[in-house]
């Protein structure tokens, strides 16, 4: 993977940006806000004269006035005033008298006493205005001179900027920080959105139950995840197709096996039919009947075995619908009726006049009825009776198939017809029905119960 497209790279970049964003934004603010502002206010070209500048200058000037007379000193102060118009100046001579060659705002005493001097110094201690006292000359006998500079004049130029500037400056920093937060949030939300899309894609399944592939444009970690996901979807499709092919093969095998087993049985049966038309002894006839019965039995067994295999594997086709049971039973019994007649069995049918609906697959129900009827004809025809009763009571409806044979468990036929009944059992359970067998030596009742789910 390309390192520049990695999410790790992006994350590291964001972390570096997070660490640097505050100092950088202050720095950028200075350049982008302060400098233009100072330019606008004309502070940029002004020479900065701080406190120490005034102090040094005043001391130097005082030194130079060593031995100067009153007039010289006054002239000097006037010159200095021209150079420093913001400052106020005066001086006090050796006798302590105030000399005011220049206008001065406050009133000063004519003569400086020791106490006034102390008080004046104390008053100017707080630096407003900034005041420098210096003895004239070196011997401290010629008196002293004073310069007062307003506090504003000694401040650095940046402090003299318009107050609106600070708001703009802070606003600038705030916007930079905010845009960083928005940017990182956007980064996170984008990752989240893509993960969400992937999750949605996993739940969005096609008719085969396989998720649909996603559109992958990026090559970063999530892009790779998306590609792996698509790969997985593709493999799922392949394996599902393979599974279907195998299933088809297996079903074809069962079908052709069923065919291969049935074809010789058909031949046997056709031969039996031809022999029956010949003259023959009674015992030969009986043997033929027996062979015919066994052919029927083997054929049913093949059918049941294949059906049971399909059922167990959940491959038996199932189409659920509302089944009008009375209508369905009439039609099914009509098909069996000639066989019952042939066996001289009394058929007792009790169906209600109103419709009773069961939810299930008609083909399955038909199969259940077929297997149960077959069971009665095979093993209980000596009772010469078969009864079908459909009743409905309190949301439960039940179908009872009764015979008057010699009972169920006593005979070995349960074993013989095991697969047929196993199919009945499996189908009944699969359709959410229940069944019970009540058997005595005078007959058997098989009851199938359907409970309508509201």
């Amino acid at each position, binding site marked *: 993977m390309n390192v520049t497209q990695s999410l790790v790279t992006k994350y590291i970049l964001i972390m570096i940006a997070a660490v640097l964003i505050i100092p950088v934004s202050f720095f950028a603010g200075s350049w982008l806000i302060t400098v233009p502002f100072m330019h606008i206010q004309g502070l940029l070209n002004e020479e900065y004269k701080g406190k120490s500048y005034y102090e040094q200058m005043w001391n130097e000037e005082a030194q130079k006035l060593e031995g100067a007379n009153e007039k010289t000193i006054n002239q000097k102060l006037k010159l200095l005033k021209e150079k420093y118009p913001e400052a106020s100046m005066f001086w006090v001579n050796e006798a302590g008298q105030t000399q005011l060659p220049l206008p001065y705002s406050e009133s000063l005493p004519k003569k400086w006493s020791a106490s006034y001097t102390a008080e004046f110094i104390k008053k100017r201690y707080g630096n407003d205005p900034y005041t420098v006292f210096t003895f004239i000359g070196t011997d401290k006998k010629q008196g002293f001179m004073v310069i007062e500079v307003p506090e504003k004049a000694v401040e650095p130029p940046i402090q003299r900027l318009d107050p609106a500037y600070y708001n703009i400056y802070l606003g600038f920093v705030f916007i930079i920080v905010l845009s960083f937060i928005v940017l990182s949030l956007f980064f996170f939300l984008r990752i989240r959105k893509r993960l969400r899309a992937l999750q949605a894609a996993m739940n969005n399944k096609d008719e085969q139950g396989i998720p649909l592939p996603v559109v992958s444009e990026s090559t970063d970690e999530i892009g790779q995840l998306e590609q792996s996901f698509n790969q997985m979807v593709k493999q799922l499709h392949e394996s599902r197709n393979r599974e279907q092919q195998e299933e088809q093969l297996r079903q074809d095998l069962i079908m052709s096996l069923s065919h291969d087993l*049935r074809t010789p049985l*058909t031949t046997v049966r*056709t031969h039996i039919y031809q022999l029956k038309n010949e003259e023959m002894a009674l015992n030969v006839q009986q043997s033929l009947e027996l062979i015919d019965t066994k052919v029927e039995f083997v054929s049913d067994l093949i059918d049941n075995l294949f059906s049971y295999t399909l059922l167990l594997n959940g491959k038996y086709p199932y189409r659920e619908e509302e089944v009008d049971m009375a209508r369905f039973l009439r039609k099914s019994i*009509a098909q069996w009726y000639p066989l019952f007649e042939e066996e001289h069995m009394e058929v007792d049918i009790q169906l209600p006049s*109103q419709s009773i609906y069961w939810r299930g697959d008609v083909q399955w129900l038909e199969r259940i009825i077929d297997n149960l009827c077959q069971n009665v004809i095979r093993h209980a025809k000596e009772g010469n009776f078969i009864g079908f009763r459909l009743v409905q009571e309190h949301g439960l409806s039940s179908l009872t198939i009764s015979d008057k044979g010699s009972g169920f468990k006593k005979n070995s036929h349960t074993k013989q017809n095991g697969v047929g009944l196993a199919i009945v059992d499996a189908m009944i359970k699969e359709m959410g029905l229940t069944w019970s067998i009540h058997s005595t030596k005078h007959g058997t009742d098989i009851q199938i119960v359907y409970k309508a789910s509201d």
Partner: protein
Amino acid sequence: MNYVLYIEDNEEIGLMIQNELKKQNYEVTWLQSGDIASQFIEQADIVILDVMLPGLDGFTVGKKLKKLAPDVPILMLSARTALEDKIMGLEFADDYVTKPFHPEELLARLEVLLRRFSRKKEELILKHLHISMRDYRVMNRETSEEISLTGKQFYIFTYFLQHLNQILTKEQIYEGVWKERYIEGDKTLMVHIRYLREKLEKNAAKPEIIETIRGIGYRVKQ
């Protein structure tokens, strides 16, 4: 004489059934594959078709034949009893018999199908009745009088004759004749059957022609 187109690849079965059909007075063409079956469909009254065939399988052949001649009944011989096959076959086939079948059963079903498709142009004797299957005219043999039936009575009786020997449920008859869904408890059919019996039966209280199968429906048996 009815003409049977019989398609079966197994030689033993094919030969025997062919002989049996000939014995029963059918004209038979037996083919061992379905590839050229469509050449014979013109003359055929009925088709007996095996599912497992070399080349084209029975379903494909059957569908093709049904498309060429929708009024020729097709009876499928199926060795495959999985429900899927039954449903697939019955989409175009009119009936099916599962191998190993009894030859009697095959012959019986053949008759039923031919009647259902009105391809059996014969005279039918039912107890005291003589019926011309060509136009379903009913004569009383004892009095030599023609029995005239009203519209619905005629349709109901024709339906019985087309399904001779079969037990028909109330729903089947009603829906076959009226072409609308039967509603449980409807007495219309019973009333019509009563009138029909009054015309056909010697004694309507003890019907011999239209038999009642209690709890299921009715049957006209030969």
